[in-house]
């Protein structure tokens, strides 16, 4: 069935279709309408899950984790400051090898206050031991959320999964979404099974102190579960393709017109589609370029990336996030994967709007540079009228 819905509505529907048992909720823009929709579904009697209202995101994840280790499929969602406030419990969850799913509708981090889109909140969790996927459309937000439950609960993985999507640009844009049937989803996601359940009646416990060597071994087991999850994700993706006619989930990441391209642009999230428009236009004008969209930041598929980008003359990596002082996280990851010239661009922070014309200009300028010189480094790009940026320290007198 097709329906016009926002990214947040699509995620809430996926959570319902996955027959989740517990949802820990605490509101924060732009994620809030996910949990509002779930609460309304519960009120209408369409959802049997327990909706647990808490006083903070830290507790939202604690409740979701508690439900997960007691054997219940559980979910939560957050953004920005909420994710940062939850940070400690994010690590407790992966360290506990607890399968659960969280959606992050991305948003810039304060100070100063800013409610608009940026991916730095999501990207700042990339060392925390979660599987991390990022959507580019409301459709993909629904699809990845459904797949996340199955990947998370696969015995070869047993890790939490974080699904990111651009705040407002995906969370609040209404567009056509294909909804798989409940029967298909039931067959796709089997009932939850886990090797242990925390219950007052049993002797199992968790969160005890681990001596050094055991602690390190646990950390290595998480590392290996993440790298090995690549095959599980592709397997789950192929299964999902059978229930969604629009699906293209046989690979972790997505190529667009890359085969014969000399140069490539690498992106993540919603603006990848604007970049595709630019790639088409550049090709019409004789520039041989393609696009590579990163869908999974963890696992980081070195194999797929080398196969798709290893033979390019140079690549341009556009980040909507920063590791301040170092450039964009995607840029840094690609630098550590490929031995080809790579230029980084940081843009779109705090809701700065970047469209197809900006991608056209960025890519065409990059190809000109790359033809005649060795490209590298990181550029901060401002679209439109901004030609010069004055960077003062706020507290110094002018």
């Amino acid at each position, binding site marked *: 069935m*097709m*329906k*016009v819905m926002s990214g947040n509505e699509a995620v809430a529907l996926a959570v319902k279709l996955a027959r989740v048992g517990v949802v820990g909720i605490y509101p924060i823009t*732009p994620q809030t309408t996910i949990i509002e929709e779930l609460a309304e579904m519960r009120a209408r009697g369409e959802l049997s899950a327990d909706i647990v209202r808490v006083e903070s995101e830290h507790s939202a994840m604690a409740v979701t984790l508690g439900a997960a280790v007691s054997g219940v499929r559980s979910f939560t969602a957050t953004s920005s400051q909420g994710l940062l406030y939850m940070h400690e419990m994010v690590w407790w969850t992966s360290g506990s090898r607890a399968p659960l799913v969280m959606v992050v509708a991305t948003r810039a981090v304060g100070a100063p206050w800013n*409610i*608009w889109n940026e991916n730095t909140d999501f990207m700042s969790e990339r060392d925390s031991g979660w599987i991390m996927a990022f959507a580019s459309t409301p459709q993909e937000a629904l699809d990845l959320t459904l797949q996340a439950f199955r990947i998370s609960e696969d015995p070869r993985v047993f890790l939490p999964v974080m699904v990111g999507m*651009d705040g*407002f*640009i995906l969370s*609040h*844009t*209404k*567009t*056509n979404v294909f909804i798989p049937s409940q029967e298909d989803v039931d067959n796709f996601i089997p009932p939850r099974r886990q090797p242990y359940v925390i219950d007052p009646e049993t002797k199992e416990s968790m969160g005890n102190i681990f001596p050094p060597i055991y602690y390190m071994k646990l950390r290595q087991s998480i590392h290996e579960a993440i790298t090995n999850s690549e095959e599980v994700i592709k397997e789950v993706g192929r299964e999902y393709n059978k229930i969604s006619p629009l699906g293209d989930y046989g690979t972790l990441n997505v190529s667009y017109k890359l085969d014969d391209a000399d140069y490539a642009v690498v992106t993540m999230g*919603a*603006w990848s*589609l*604007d970049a*595709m*428009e630019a790639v088409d236009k550049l090709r019409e004008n004789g520039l041989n370029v393609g696009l590579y969209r990163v869908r999974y930041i963890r696992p980081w598929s070195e194999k797929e990336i080398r196969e798709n980008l290893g033979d390019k003359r140079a690549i341009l990596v556009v980040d909507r996030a920063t590791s301040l002082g170092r450039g964009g996280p995607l840029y840094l990851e690609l630098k550590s994967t490929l031995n080809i010239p790579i230029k980084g661009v940081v843009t779109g922070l705090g809701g700065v*709007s*970047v*469209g*197809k014309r900006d991608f056209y200009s960025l890519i065409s300028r990059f190809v000109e540079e790359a033809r005649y010189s060795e490209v590298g480094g990181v550029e901060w790009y401002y679209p439109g009228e901004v030609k010069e940026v004055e960077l003062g320290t706020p507290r110094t007198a002018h």
Partner: protein
Amino acid sequence: MESSLEIRFHGRGGQGVVTAANVLAEAASLENMFSSAFPIYGAERRGAEIESYCRISRTQIRETSPIEEPDVVVILDPTLLKISNPLRGLRKDGKVVINWKGASPSVGFKTYTVDATGIALELKLVKSGWPLVNIVMLGALVKATGVPSLESLKMAIGQEFSGNLGELNKRAVELSFERTFEVEQIVA
């Protein structure tokens, strides 16, 4: 309609500017077209200027950025013409659909006027003292562009609003469709 149509809505917080774009997107999707609808979000305040966007296309929509060169501008509150520039970027052959009573304003584009406030008051489509003109304006938009059909629009209204509110809004778009005037503008 050619392959695609880009529509920008201008109004004030509380007028239902966002909902208008959403209902339009739903109506287009009922005719198996692709559509996307979204607003500019900020610190929303009742009465503040609000923009929302709707793209309709026969092929997949890949643009996610705000509409800067619309085919159609829909203006829910005509006072916005004086305090801001809702016509910015409108294509040369673009259309203006405006909530307007009396002699048509001279804006330099092909213009469609409808007294949406009058229709809303007539049908008692009023909330917290404000006439609800958002859906009324969609009837005029359909008259101006032919996209989507009035039938699809009414179906989408039925999906968005239940009960009496749905029926009133369906009646409202019938009236606004009938009472929309086309004005050929002389470019100043």
